[in-house]
């Protein structure tokens, strides 16, 4: 038993979401249990493959058995995986997510994906430069430095049709071209990793799972525009991404992929990490630059664009994480290969973060032009059983809610914009019949008014006024004319704000009014929340015929709103009730209803 001589690989997904689900304990448990067993197993770590709903994920590769993935692994699985699968050679059926050569339900998640940005995520060790190099990493950089002029690089990126993945969708090659044409010997390139849209987490996952792919894209961009220094501007809330980037930069410098004479080409480039300090508006490029310069992150009027006058007044190119992660692939595979994915105006693939009321949530990378329905229902598995799909929020606080009637649109920049939402960075938060659209609008306005930098009056004061109206509506104090007032304020804020934050802040309100006006009206006119989400509008009642007087609910109520003697029908005082739902949750006899 001690030396079965099996050569196997066990890989644990150690990204932030995996770790949050318990992956680190699993990894340590494997370490412990494998120690001194005398079986030849290599224990590895990797980033996130994107199947967040099945975390923690463990891959087991035993020669002759095909690659196997287990999902929802806890430390209790560890012993059995070693004994039955690694030693015994028999995969454990009930925990399988993926088994080479076998069809399993979770295949629906990965099979329709086309992975360019996520090409290495979940398969390589993000802290090993060797792993990255073994997959062809830094080959694109070598090709560029050896055999391409900066203009040739730019024209490949132009031909690929790649557009900025941070939200606005500006053609990347054109952006590079503008910065490269600027005179001057000091230029900068910046990675915008200030992923602030709540509901989007692809940039974090890319940096945690494959940091070298972003770094390689950045060095290529630097060469193309003639920059000698670069910055990663990363949210401080992403400590693991920062740690893995630091390792990647140190290793790349040691190997000569960064430094004063990269791969003997004479081209020199160095890069630093700047940690953001918590300001959503710093995702806007002029605000981001101000922040790197040590100032308050307030946007400036453009032009001049950063391409002409950016960091420290020098020509600067800024792209987001996902954009850079595409570059090396495009160089190696050609502009045509990239442009073969997608639609006429939106080329390539896009990573989406699926979250909210969805069965299979996580990261997916799909060709542009796929139907929205395919992402949410085929890949994501739709809403949980017993609920009905209501809308999907696309584009974060700058975006909007797309209702069911548009579920068959093709996902590209133009089609999404037509609905009133925006592509944004690709966050998709799915909502079902238990989500109140007025509450969602209030949620986003609360966010944007909090994050408004205060420079433009309409954004600073207007969002606050809109928020007050929405809070009133959710509290059951809505008045006739509130909807019209919201619309008017929204339009004024859009037209009178300097930057993208203000120009798009009213979108979540305007789109929910457009598609879910009846919900607003129910709140205002009937003082009723159809989704049963706005607590102030809920009425709790005891169903007399079901109540046996067990007193569980009286004990559960934190405010003493439920009363009644043992074995007698209880009553609820709705004036005291805070709508916490505790009574309904503890009742075993369906004796409490809410409406």
């Amino acid at each position: 038993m001690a030396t079965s001589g099996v050569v196997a690989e066990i890989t644990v997904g150690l990204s932030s979401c995996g770790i949050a689900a318990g992956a680190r304990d699993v990894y340590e448990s494997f370490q412990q249990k494998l120690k001194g067993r005398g079986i030849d197993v290599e224990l590895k770590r990797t980033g996130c493959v994107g199947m967040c709903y099945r975390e923690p994920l463990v891959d087991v590769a035993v020669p002759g058995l095909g690659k196997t993935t287990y999902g929802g692994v806890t430390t209790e699985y560890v012993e059995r995986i070693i004994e039955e699968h690694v030693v015994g050679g028999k995969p454990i059926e009930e925990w399988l997510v993926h088994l080479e050569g076998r069809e399993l339900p979770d295949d629906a998640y990965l099979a329709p994906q086309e992975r360019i940005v996520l090409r290495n995520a979940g398969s390589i060790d993000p802290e090993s430069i060797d792993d990255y190099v073994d997959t062809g990493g830094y080959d694109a950089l070598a090709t560029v430095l050896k055999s391409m002029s900066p203009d040739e690089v730019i024209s490949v990126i132009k031909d690929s049709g790649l557009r900025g993945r941070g939200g606005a969708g500006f053609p990347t090659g054109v952006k590079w071209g503008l910065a490269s044409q600027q005179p001057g010997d000091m230029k900068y390139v910046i990675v915008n990793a200030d992923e602030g849209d709540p509901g989007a987490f692809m940039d974090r996952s890319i940096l945690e799972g494959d940091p070298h792919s972003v770094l390689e894209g950045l060095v290529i961009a630097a060469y193309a525009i003639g920059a000698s220094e670069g910055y990663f501007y990363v949210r401080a809330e992403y400590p693991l991404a920062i740690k893995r980037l630091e390792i990647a930069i140190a290793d790349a410098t040691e190997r000569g992929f960064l430094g004063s004479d990269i791969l003997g080409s004479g081209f020199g480039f160095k890069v630093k990490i700047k940690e953001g300090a918590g300001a959503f508006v710093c995702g806007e490029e002029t605000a981001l630059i101000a922040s790197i310069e040590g100032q308050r992150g307030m946007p400036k009027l453009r032009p001049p664009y950063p391409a002409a006058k950016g960091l420290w007044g020098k020509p600067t190119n800024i792209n987001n994480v996902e954009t850079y992660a595409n570059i090396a692939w495009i160089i190696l595979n050609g502009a045509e290969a990239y442009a073969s994915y997608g639609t006429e105006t939106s080329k390539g693939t896009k990573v989406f973060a699926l979250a909210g009321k969805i069965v299979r949530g996580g990261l997916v990378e799909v060709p542009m032009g796929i139907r929205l329905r395919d992402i949410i229902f085929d890949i994501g598995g739709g809403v949980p059983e017993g609920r009905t799909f209501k809308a999907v929020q696309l584009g974060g606080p700058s975006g909007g809610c797309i209702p069911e009637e548009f579920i068959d649109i093709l996902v590209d920049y133009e089609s999404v914009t037509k609905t009133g939402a925006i592509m944004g960075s690709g966050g998709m938060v799915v909502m079902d019949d238990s989500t109140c659209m007025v509450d969602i609008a209030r949620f986003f306005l609360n966010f944007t008014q909090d994050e408004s930098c205060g420079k433009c009056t309409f954004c600073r004061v207007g969002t606050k006024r809109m928020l007050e109206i929405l809070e009133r509506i959710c509290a059951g104090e809505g008045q006739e004319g509130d909807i019209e007032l919201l619309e008017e304020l929204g339009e004024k804020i859009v037209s009178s704000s300097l930057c993208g934050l203000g120009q798009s802040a009213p979108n979540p309100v305007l789109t929910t009014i457009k598609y879910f006006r009846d919900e607003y009206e129910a709140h205002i006119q009937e003082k009723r929340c159809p989704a049963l989400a706005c607590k102030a509008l809920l009425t709790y009642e005891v169903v007399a015929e079901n109540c046996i007087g067990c007193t569980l609910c009286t004990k559960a109520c934190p405010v003493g709103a439920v009363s009644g003697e043992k074995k007698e029908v209880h009553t609820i005082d709705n004036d005291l009730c805070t709508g916490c739902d505790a009574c309904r949750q503890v009742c075993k006899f369906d004796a409490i209803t809410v409406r």
Partner: protein
Amino acid sequence: MEKAAVQAETTKEYLAIVDEIARKYADAPGSVIPVLQQTQARIGYLPMGVIERIGHSLGVPPSRVYGVASFYSQFRFNPVGKYIVKICHGTACHVQGAGAITAAICDELGVHDGGTTEDGMFTVDSVSCIGCCSLAPVIMIADDTFGRLTPAEARKIVREYGK
């Protein structure tokens, strides 16, 4: 009297920390934010005396240093608890009941959102998205992230840390 002496000692210690950090950045433009970040990482918050010292050390008016610090949500001007309980209020967490998690944790610890417990153990802080949307609702304590929470589980987790 004794209390004042302790305070003076603490202030001296804080200023020494600022000097040590600022020295590394003497000539670096754009160093205000990294110096603020590292100082807060050591002291836990940014008292006014510390803000002034940073300004003098970097040759930047203290009013500007304060202007920068107060712009970004990361910086705090009051002492915080040993553990900061960050409750994610991103979209996914909101939809999945972050409000109920906040209520449970505040109730368990007997503080308001943003407040610090009397024993100095916990500060409750509602934050924007921490990027673990698929595991919503999520909280973060120190560097540990906990996902797929119910209010009861959230209470249990803070109780464990309080031990």
